């Protein structure tokens, strides 16, 4: 299958590959997909006290479209608030990258990864609040 130029561009020059400390309080981690399905994305966000995503990192096991989708997702959510990032939907990613129908699931996975990272961050915050609230 022929890839779109944007997929190739992201695939060859992926943005924000890397790892943040998953145990840090200001970091949320989303790990979605399954090795048996041929796609696993890990997307991490570092969130400021004001609720803005200061940094985002990913690592992806998958095809070119999966790697490009996660690269684009990290690029887009950087500088956004959690509420803004949460509103990002897969069709925006699919449209930007011109994904063919068989690759739409790659963009779905990227959306899931963002939501999962935000959820992880919020859980951590809630747990911290519960702890400090008790003291």
């Amino acid at each position, binding site marked *: 299958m022929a890839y779109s130029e944007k997929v190739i561009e992201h695939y060859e020059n992926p943005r924000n590959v890397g790892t943040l400390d998953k145990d840090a309080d200001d970091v949320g981690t989303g790990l979605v997909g399954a090795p*048996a*399905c041929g*796609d*696993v994305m890990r997307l991490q966000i570092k969130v400021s006290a004001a609720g803005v995503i200061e940094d985002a990192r990913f690592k992806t*096991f998958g*095809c*070119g479209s999966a*790697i490009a989708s996660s690269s684009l997702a990290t690029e887009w959510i950087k500088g956004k608030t959690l509420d803004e990032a949460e509103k990002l939907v897969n069709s925006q990613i699919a449209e930007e990258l011109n994904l063919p129908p068989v690759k739409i699931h790659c963009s779905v996975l990227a959306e899931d990864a963002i939501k999962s990272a935000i959820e992880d961050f919020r859980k951590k915050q809630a747990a911290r609040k519960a702890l400090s609230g008790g003291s």
Partner: protein
Amino acid sequence: MNLPIYMDNHATTPMDPRVLRAMEPYFLSQFGNAASRTHRFGWEAEAAVEDARETLARFIGAESGKEIVFTSGATEADNLAIKGVAEYYGSKGRHIVTTVIEHKAVLDSCKRLEKDGYSVTYLGVDHSGRVDPEEVRRALTDQTILVSVMLANNEVGTIQPIAEIGAITHEKGVLLHVDAVQGVGKTPFDVEAMNVDLASITAHKIYGPKGIGALYVRRKKPRVRIAPQMDGGGHERGNRSGTLNVPGIIGFAKAAEILMNEGAAEAERLRQLRDRLHQKISAKLELVTLNGHPEHRLPGNLNLSFSFVEGEGLMMAIKDVAVSSGSACTSASLEPSYVLKSMGLDDELAHSSIRFGLGRFNTEADVDFVADLVIGKVSRLRDMSPLYEMHKDGIDLKSIQWAAH
């Protein structure tokens, strides 16, 4: 070096220029219809076709050119063998034995017969992709009319014990069909010595043209009959109607003749190139698994799984080399290779597989280039792989509850 490098010779092969030269007159000056009996154009074409038939018979160890039925390719030959035998011998029995790793032309022909009331036993294979001849024996019943097993597998190159299977089917009086497409000319194949009753072959996997194949149908001990699946002018002794593809047939025979002369040396050269590729890659990369049988394997075949790297993603990275992958992403169904899964490979490793198919026109320089490219790109993709990082951190990936999607 001309890029991209073609290393997908199980899919198809480029034509040998000698084949093209042999075909050329049959397009231009000797263009006659081999069935024309009234003039020289037809006679010349017919004579050339009969010569080609004899050459192809020798190529597979058959006794006579009369046992060669030309078809449009191996898919048609497989269909004709299986459906043709089933239809002809259906009153004798309605059971067929085959294997789970056959080509779709065999499997889907069998599936069609199941809908028509035949029963089919699909034998499994071991971890290397080999069928156990004793399992073939155990699967035979008094209703069995046909066993169909491939000579060599198209994905992992595993060579099946056809002679052993042939001894069993011969003893039991059951017909044996062999899809010899991938193996013929590359590994020994002799229909007489191996007791093969029907065999499918095709030109485009042996440096011949596309669009021409043949079905070998034994005429003696036993005389095998098939019901034609194409009706019309009664060509090929009534077995397959349709004007013969004369240039294709000439090219097919030329390709076979080249292999009869040079096949043994070529196999040895390809084996060395293949082993060089394997050794270079394994020396620099950890967690690389060979799929298929270490010895009973086509000389040009190298099917490797690169753990924690997805096959299609890797193919995109090594786009300067044409290969194929068992990854689901390369198929419309999003299912990984049924051949690799049948061999007991985890889905993860099936997704991570790359098939290198070396052929006549690959050089040592190609191999060295590809090895370096693969080493570099696998390392880069592993650096981007969350699974590789988890593996490095000592996390057992099997212990994680993955959300299937």
